[in-house]
């Protein structure tokens, strides 16, 4: 295959970001091309059909299903209000009377003479889609949504949980190796996105929620702490819809792993600025990684050249992403073209790289990712 390595995660101080903001059903777009929008601005809205409810009228009135339409006081499509009598039946020459009241506000959708069921529906549920990032509307997807564009500093994480939030970046770690523990989280973290170094501890996660931080970013997290936070285990790598009050993003992986210098340095540059972040991760075809976006960030100093398109060449900065050098940063030394037998006896394409401690080691190309920018 053309790409025998894992494409790296994007970490860049300035790039153009486009976000597609799409409704779940067709609806109305509320903005036009050229409009400037803020994260909380509603750009499109629609109404989802209200929640339906089935009533077993034949059972409740003790009648045959085919008699249900006769006993209904409302027709299909009629509006109903909670508590209103909607069906009535009498038996024993009127001695015994039964009435059914509407349990909800809404309308009668279906009266079935076959099953004896009546379907009621609550009023439509309005759904709004917000802009998520500050930027300009560059395209309208008729009745579906919009595309918002901005120039921003952009960091992709490797894994995250929790949805879209906005907040001010607060870099707590002094170095990319620092561990973010509970004592570093103070009340002034409220509403902020706090950034640690190599690890966020379980206690720090709890404390971050306690003080009201909206987001938390670190190099690594321990598997057991993630489970403790969620109250359940994540089996399949689809996240973003967790019911938690904080969005958590790890940039490197599971366990204690030093944050890449490049990522850490960028956090230094965006410290104090307002970011839009999303923990949603989906790992399969059409990979989705968690993201930190700082719209309209003014780059500090000169921008480094973008090396991402060149692929692996000698000198490319990489991270090894599998044992025995998991998490270690390195630089490509050379890329022998021939297949080589590794310890498992598999014959694979490899590269040689220089680790941070100066050792030069052999690693399968599939086990490195480029630190992109």
């Amino acid at each position, binding site marked *: *295959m*053309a*790409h025998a390595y*894992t494409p790296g995660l994007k970490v860049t101080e300035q790039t153009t970001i486009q976000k597609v903001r*799409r*409704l*779940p*059903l*067709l609806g109305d777009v509320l903005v036009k091309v050229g409009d400037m929008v803020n994260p909380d601005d509603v750009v499109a809205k629609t109404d989802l*059909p209200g*929640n*339906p*409810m*089935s009533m077993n009228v034949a059972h409740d009135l003790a009648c045959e*299903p085919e008699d249900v339409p006769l006993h209904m006081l409302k027709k299909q499509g009629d509006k109903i209000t909670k508590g209103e009598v909607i069906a009535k039946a009498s038996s024993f020459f009127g001695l015994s009377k039964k009435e059914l009241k509407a349990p909800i506000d809404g309308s009668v*959708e*279906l009266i*079935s003479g*076959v*099953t*004896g*069921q009546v*379907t009621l*529906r609550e009023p439509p549920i309005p759904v709004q889609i917000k802009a998520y990032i500050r930027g300009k509307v560059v395209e309208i997807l008729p*009745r*579906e949504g919009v595309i918002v564009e901005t120039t921003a500093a952009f960091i992709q994480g*490797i*894994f995250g949980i929790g949805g879209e939030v906005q907040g001010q970046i607060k870099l707590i770690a002094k170095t990319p190796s620092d561990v973010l523990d509970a004592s570093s989280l103070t009340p002034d973290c409220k509403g902020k996105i706090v950034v640690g170094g190599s690890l966020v501890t379980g206690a720090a996660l709890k404390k971050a929620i306690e003080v009201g931080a909206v987001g938390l970013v670190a190099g690594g997290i*321990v*598997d*057991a702490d993630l489970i403790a936070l969620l109250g359940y*285990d*994540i*089996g*399949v*790598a689809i996240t973003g819809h967790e019911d938690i009050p904080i969005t958590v993003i790890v940039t490197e*992986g*599971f*366990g204690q792993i030093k944050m890449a210098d490049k990522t850490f340095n960028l956090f230094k540059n965006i410290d104090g600025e307002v970011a839009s972040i999303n923990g949603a*991760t989906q*790992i*399969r*075809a*059409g990979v989705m990684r968690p993201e930190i976006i700082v719209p309209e960030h003014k780059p500090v100093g000169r921008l480094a050249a973008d090396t991402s398109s060149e692929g692996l060449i000698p000198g490319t900065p990489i991270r090894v*992403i*599998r*044992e*025995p050098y*998991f998490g270690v940063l390195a630089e490509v030394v050379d890329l022998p073209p021939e297949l080589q037998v*590794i*310890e*498992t*006896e*598999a014959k*694979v394409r490899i590269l040689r790289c220089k680790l941070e401690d100066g050792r030069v080691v052999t*690693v*399968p190309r*599939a*086990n490195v*990712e480029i630190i992109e920018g």
Partner: protein
Amino acid sequence: MSENSHGAKYNLDREINSILATDCGSTTTKAILIEKVDGEYRLIVRGEAPTTVEKPFEDVTAGARNAIREIEELTGKRFLDDKGVINPRRPDGSGVDIYLSTSSAGGGLQMMVAGVVKIMSAESAQRAALGAGAIVMDVISIDDGRLPYQRIQRIRHLRPDMILLSGGIDGGTMSHVAQIAELISAAEPKPRLGIGFKLPIIYAGNKDARGYVSKILGEKTDLRMVDNIRPVLEREVLGPAREEIHNLFMEHVMAQAPGYDKLMKWTPVPIMPTPGAVGLGMQNAAKEHKMSVIGVDIGGATTDVFSVFGEEYELFNRTVSANLGMSYSICNVLLESGVANIMRWVPFSIDEADLRNRIRNKMIRPTTIPQTLDELVIEQAISREALRLAFIHHKSLAVGLRGIQQIRDIGAAFEQSMTGQSHIDLMKLGMLIGSGGVLSHAPRRVQSALMMLDAFQPEGLTQLAVDSIFMMPQLGVLSTVHPQASAQVFDRDCLIRLGTAIAPVGPGREGEHSVIVRGTLPDGREVNEEVKYGQMRLIPLGEGQTAEFHIQPARSFDVGAGKGKAITQKLLGGVVGVIVDARGRQPFGLPVDKATRIKKLLEWIESLDVYPREVLARYSAK
């Protein structure tokens, strides 16, 4: 058949000399070229490229072109022009006689099924959907234990590609299936692809209820009517429903997926869902070789299990365990099996927290490969559990019709047989075929053999094979237009024969006599192996070789002829050989005590030469 973009209709009366087939998988598009060589169809070359359904390409034909271009480069021939694959072949030699494709890109075919009774019409509907190659997202039935509002919520939440609705026998009561139709109507389900499109619903229930179902669902959905899948209780008719699923797959799912409109014009043969084509391939294999077959495909996200049993190999079943896989859903294997079940296959100790972090890191970086032997051993241990769980799931669905009356003679009455009995009889299993990265690319083939033995525990005599490059999908779809070419390539180029396993069935005690295997190998060497309970042995018998063996089980063991009864049979060799697995079946148990278990695992690893010894010793010593 419709015309392709070159205006071709396949005329199979003329001679077919070259066939090109692609499988557009969720991550990789694989192309194979088959040509007639000396009167036989053979695989000539293969090519692959990343699938391009997602951004930035959003056109499946780009990946298909790249994979075919690799074949062009390797053969020096031309197969593509600006309209697509050139077919039929041109006088200048460019192009092929037949081009076809399968696809599971973009999440494959995702369905929801609904029926009246869980173990009857709903189960039949599930079998119809799975057999057609779908992932079944949920099964709704009147007796599924959920309240109506919970069912409605679930239907609303899922966005399947289509729903298969069944229930009631023809002429029977209508009210139950009508109730399910009303639930679906209330939920107003939307399709996964194509905002603003109506969701396709196939109605395959009581034909008397068609009018009412049309009234309820006709306007809101794209409703199709097919024959009842359970016209009477005692009969299951899956064909028409499966055919309609395939039609809708082409019309709705494929037509919405990026670039498929172009791909569909490249060939007059409908594009088949990949697992549906694999199922066809498995059925053909069983009929061709006249033996029952179990096949498994373990991927990154899902594990598919196929089985073909029965006197006429008519009992075909497929299941897909949607969340058992080796990368994307590897953490779910950990969740479902537990750490202890994974570690029982590992012959050294590892810290549990470390193991869990390693597995999670594999999930978030799924394309990495084990560099060290301990990582390989752990990955293969996880695959054993994924395969074992997927097989349990398969056995639960590969059963006869349930809830029906059986006419019994006096003998059957004593057998206490019930309805819904499993179709899976491991003693009757003839061949076990494995595919998917962890099985197809294991550094030593014996590792694949042992993974399959541990996970499936075949009984008696069973051939073991792996699909070398996973070309079963292409061969499956090819069998619909050219069965002969499909069968010849399957036999000669598709499978890597690992050998044959001899597994005596019965309880025993460690060190007790279990089986004696005698025979003469093709090179004249005599084999006379006595294998004790708890041991494994490898008898060398190479690829393409056969040898006759006399297999004498001990009194309490059965190898297929009954307890203590000998069998004399010609066995097929392979790249591994003949494996005598006397570790016991029914029950098979690993020692509970950790030290004893590790000792036993190391003994088996040594008997079969599974891993490089010195390297393994280093990890065991840690």
